[in-house]
């Protein structure tokens, strides 16, 4: 990849807070003049990354290069970078003019003067006139020309927002950082400001790094989007790339609406889902289990006999430009956006073009943990104790009354503290409403709907994840516990079995 014109480059950046990894191995470069957006749900590390670029946080690991110079440990006041803060952070003791002039009054510029015929380079402060010109120009850009003497507290949210932007751009930074700047504005205002910011970006030619959790905002404004989750970059690409070619089910679900199904590759560019073999364009090995993503607007509704798969139209919602339909194909829901009006409760069929079927490698096939056997022959992992069948470790064995495992030859094994690998299928975990009733409790951190079931991720306090396929609806941030039936826990010994012979 060509790396010409790079203004800032982050290499292997990691950040830890109290032992929790908030940003993990973050690699990114940004070209001069680019509008780049960090997009992700709250707590994904996007703001922390921005704060490391601004200099408010020091990365635990890695380096930040600005124009080829290492600025990793440079304090914020020495970086040619300015920030528009989430809640504006305007100085309440200064009026609009002085807020905007704050940075200029501190700035030193290099100047060449002629003194006694000698040409000297000196550092000087900006003159009052220079400051005045720049402040007025900045206020003009944000449309606040008549507001110089106004008190900050008399301004509306949108006006404060503009002052915050003017205060940052007046310093002519090389990079402008914007931390969810439109979060506090109402919808209409937000839409207007999005366009204005985009316009400003074009006019000023400054590199913008923008943080938001609003996918629509990201798609509207950015040249490049960085999708993040749990401190890890999921995908980097242009808005069209990210929308049309999401790399995994998380990105597909987060960006726009999508239908996500479990599929199986049945042959060369053939995939089975919704009980039908579809032609597709992605190449995957045969029999591989995959996630299939289809955007609702890429599915065409047709008369009963004309399409590929039949189903019953069960719901219709008017959305302004289009109708949103839900078609039940067997047990699977298919969400379709169509501009034409159809009556519900009739049998219809759908048609999908091969290149609109996006196929991705499955992120989770099963849950795998490291654990050990305790003296009750239970297995301990992910902060919990689970009953399990230890006889699966040695064929044809049984447990005697003292708790030792005995094989067919009568050799006794003491498995206490034996390290094991634990594997549990996605469908074998039961989620329980009551935190106390299961083996381990945790919080639901993600829910992805996959046609006929949900994929739920439950995270324990110590950051162990349980990925569960369930038919029941749960809510994000629910506190739940998980339970696994004895027969569904698959364990394998990590060391050779002879280490555990009891003599």
């Amino acid at each position, binding site marked *: 990849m060509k790396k010409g014109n790079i203004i800032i480059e982050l290499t292997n950046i990691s950040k830890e807070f109290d032992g929790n990894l908030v940003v993990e191995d973050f690699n990114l470069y940004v070209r001069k003049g680019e509008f780049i957006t960090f997009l992700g749900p709250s707590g994904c590390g996007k703001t922390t990354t921005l704060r490391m670029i601004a200099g408010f946080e020091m990365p635990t690991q890695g380096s930040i290069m600005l124009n080829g110079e290492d600025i990793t440990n440079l304090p914020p*006041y020495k970086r040619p970078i300015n920030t528009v803060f*989430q809640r504006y952070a305007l*100085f*309440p*003791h200064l009026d609009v003019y002085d807020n905007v002039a*704050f*940075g200029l009054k501190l700035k030193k510029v290099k100047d060449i003067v002629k003194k006694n015929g000698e040409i000297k380079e000196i550092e000087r402060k900006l003159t009052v006139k220079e400051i005045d010109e720049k402040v007025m120009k900045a206020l003009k850009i944000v449309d606040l020309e008549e507001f110089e003497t106004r008190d900050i*507290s008399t301004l509306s949210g949108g006006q404060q927002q503009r002052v915050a932007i003017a205060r940052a751009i007046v310093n002519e930074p090389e990079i402008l950082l914007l931390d969810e700047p439109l979060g506090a504005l109402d919808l209409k205002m937000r839409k207007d400001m999005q366009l204005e910011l985009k316009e400003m970006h074009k006019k000023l030619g400054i590199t913008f790094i923008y943080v938001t959790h609003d996918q629509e905002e990201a798609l509207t404004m950015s040249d490049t989007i960085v999708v993040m989750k749990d401190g890890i970059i999921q995908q980097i690409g242009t808005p069209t790339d990210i929308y049309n070619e999401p790399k995994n089910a998380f990105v597909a679900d987060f960006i726009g609406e999508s239908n996500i199904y479990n599929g199986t590759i049945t042959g060369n560019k053939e995939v089975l889902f919704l009980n039908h073999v579809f032609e597709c364009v992605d190449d995957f090995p045969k029999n591989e289990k995959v996630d299939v993503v289809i955007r609702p607007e890429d599915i065409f509704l047709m008369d009963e006999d004309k399409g590929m798969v039949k189903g019953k139209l069960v719901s219709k919602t008017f959305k302004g430009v289009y109708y949103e339909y839900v078609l039940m194909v067997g047990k699977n829901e298919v969400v379709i956006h169509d501009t034409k009006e159809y009556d519900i409760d009739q049998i219809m069929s759908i048609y999908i073009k091969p290149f609109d079927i996006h196929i991705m490698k499955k992120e989770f096939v099963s849950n795998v943990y490291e654990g050990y056997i305790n003296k009750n022959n239970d297995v301990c992992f992910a902060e919990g104790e689970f009953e399990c069948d230890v006889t699966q470790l040695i064929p044809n064995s049984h447990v005697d009354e003292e708790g030792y495992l005995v094989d067919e030859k009568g050799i006794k094994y003491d498995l206490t503290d034996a390290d094991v690998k634990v594997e549990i299928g996605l469908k074998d975990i039961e989620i329980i409403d009551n935190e106390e009733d299961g083996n381990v409790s945790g919080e639901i951190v993600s829910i992805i709907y996959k046609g006929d079931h949900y994929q739920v991720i439950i995270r324990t306090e110590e950051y162990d994840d349980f990925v569960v396929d369930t038919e029941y609806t749960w809510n994000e941030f629910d506190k739940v516990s998980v339970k696994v039936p004895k027969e569904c826990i698959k364990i394998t010994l990590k060391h050779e079995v002879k280490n555990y012979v009891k003599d």
Partner: protein
Amino acid sequence: MSKIKFQRKHLSIPYAAFLLLFVVLPLILIVYYALTDVNGTISLKNFINFFKDKNKLGLLSFSVIIGVANTVLCLLIGYPIAMILSNRKYNKSMVMVLLFVMPMWINFVLRTAATRDLLYWLGINGGENPYLATMIGMVYNYLPFTILPLYTTMLKMDKSLIEASYDLGAKPYQTFYKTIIPMTMPGIVSAATMVFMPTMSSFVISDIMGERKISLIGNAIQFNFDQSRWHDGSLIALIMLLIIGIITLLTKNIQKEENVRGGLW
């Protein structure tokens, strides 16, 4: 017999009675005594005498100097302490705040006497160094009153403003005097008023610490009332009241930012 129906506004009766009895009435009495002579005739003679008396004017200005000195010292010592206390990094359990505020819970006279003895033990004799001993006693007594309003203002201060200041190119010292000081101004003002006024009118600290070698305006008030010179005593009290009133009016203008509350009034 007409039944008196209980109404919401009747709840205010105890407070009104209290205010009348303990605030308005004493004030009227002070004004009355200040503006009358021994025979009960109204005259401004007391006033004129006060401002003609060089000793009394000297006493007033000396009290102002002590008050200013104590305020400045308390702010200089209290400001950094409040900054440290309001920083979660250094003060995780709030125990430190308690340690600084706890002296306020001990009886004031006892505390001051103990300070004098402690200083004596350290070799600072109140009789020989009345000014130093009084100053130490004053700072020690009024430091908690400085720290508390500063601490609450700093706790409420939006930390992102400090970041914004750094972000705009202000070095740490520039951030301190361009952002942190103006932002904590309400706290500084209320700390100053809480220290300055009581210092001027206190007499216990100067009596105990300075072993009666230092006289402040508070001592003068006490002396006059002890000698049953009600008219002179009330006059000095009234002058103090006016000074306090003027200062409060002036500081109100400084605290114009309504969104940065932290002051006590």
